[in-house]
């Protein structure tokens, strides 16, 4: 199933777009802010009065938001046509609905988490430093991407209308501050993974019910 989502996404070029959006964000933000001051300067900055570490931290926080928020899109989009036309039922003879749903979640998670890794690499190159506690931040992003991926998949099983993406973004409005504000990895892991499991189970159930009508 992962092979199918990968092949389909690669063919319509959405794979490239989904990975590059978070990865290229620091380049656009840091490059734009630096050039707006009228001259090229290395390391690049968002605010010239900040230290490189502060700039890297700010940029990483924004990249976190972008990565987590944008994970809803591939999760919603990848199997949207198959679910809308119920063609996804053809997979149910070879794989369980839960497997189909889990594959989409893993796929969307992998895309945007790769994008996050690209973003952090870009930040390191452009600011010359990494934000502090980058490992914990990466864990938060991983959990955030997992939850939004499960949420996007749940939404598409409820309805394939693109307007439902708005609901996903609104949920991210609650999720992102919670992730950003979490102080312990246990809290992030427990809450996030729990939410992802609930969304996955619901999505699998709804998908099978929906295709049965």
């Amino acid at each position, binding site marked *: *199933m992962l*092979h*199918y989502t990968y*092949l*389909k996404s690669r*063919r*319509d070029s959405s794979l490239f777009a989904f990975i590059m959006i978070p990865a290229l964000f620091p380049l656009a933000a840091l490059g734009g802010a630096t050039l707006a001051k009228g001259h090229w300067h290395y390391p690049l900055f968002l605010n010239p009065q900040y230290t490189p570490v502060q700039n890297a931290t700010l940029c990483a926080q924004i990249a976190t938001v972008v990565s987590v928020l944008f994970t809803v899109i591939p999760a919603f989009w990848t199997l949207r*046509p*198959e679910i809308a*036309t*119920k*063609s996804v*039922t*053809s*997979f*149910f*003879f*070879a*794989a*369980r609905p839960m497997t189909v749903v889990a594959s989409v979640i893993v796929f969307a998670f992998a895309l945007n988490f790769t994008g996050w890794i690209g973003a952090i690499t870009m930040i390191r190159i452009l600011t010359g430093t990494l934000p502090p506690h980058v490992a914990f931040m990466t864990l938060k992003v991983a959990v955030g991407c997992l939850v939004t991926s499960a949420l996007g998949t749940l939404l598409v099983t409820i309805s394939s209308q693109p307007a439902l993406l708005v609901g996903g973004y609104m949920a991210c409005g609650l999720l992102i501050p919670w992730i950003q504000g979490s102080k312990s990895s246990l809290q992030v892991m427990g809450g996030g993974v729990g939410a992802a499991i609930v969304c996955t189970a619901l999505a699998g159930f709804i998908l099978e019910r929906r*295709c*049965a*009508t």
Partner: protein
Amino acid sequence: MTEHAIVAEGLLKRYGKVTALRDTSFAVAKGTITGFVGRNGAGKTTTLKIVSTLLHADDGTCHVLGHDVRRDPYAIRGRIGFLPDMFELPAVLTLREYLGIFTELYGIARGDRAKRVDAALQLTRTEELSERKLQALSRGEVQRVGLARALIHNPDILILDEPAAGLDPHARVELKELLRLLRERGKTVFLSSHVLADLEEICDELVVIRKGTVIFSGDIAGFRRQMRATTRWRLTAVSRPIALPSGIRGEVVGTGPTSMDFEGNLSAGERARWIAELVAKGVDVCEVSPVRSTLEQEFAKAIEEEEEEVAS
């Protein structure tokens, strides 16, 4: 004793206030091609979905290859190939890639996957389409691709919902050949269709459904026998119109310039009397023969009779 691949008993399915199936019972023998006939909205697709484990009946039981569709759906799914009436294909993949994905999903050994894909392509005569993107296919080609997908894992039962829809006459002939070939290989085929002439040619058995209730289940000869309480006769003259003689019970159901189709229980004596009367009137009778009705006519008649019964 006949072994059955599918046994449905007393199926009931409601969608809100609409009852799609009521007390639907039938059986499909192993290694046969069984046609499933009914008008639009009769409950064909609902029944096929229940048999395919995609939908649960509200009441009744259905066993496929000995497994209960409700209790053991995943044991059934891997052993059936299902072709729905409408489906979409991923436009950006080639046919070979698409079938390859299903060989992976069905857990076919890596070394056998290419062979399986080639076999399915060959069986459905889609080899020339194998490297083409699925978006560039015609309706008939899409139908063949759907068949290839349904066959990729070598299922025991093939369940096809309107497989002839959208196929041109040549493709229909090919489909019939394919289904015969599958029967020869011991597969069970359960297909719904409106093209009754096609079913007549290939089906061993028939299940006729009307408004959610099975009104006939058995072989085609049995269906004909059940329908043939009255027989249609055609009387043809060389040049003059023919009139219905007096005293004969029946109904004229069609007339031509020099012929008449008559439906009724015409005994040999009555036939002789009729001919003698016409000859006496100077009508040059050249033929009196029973008209073999098509399955389509028998089906329409069965439905009409059922509706008349219900109305009365």
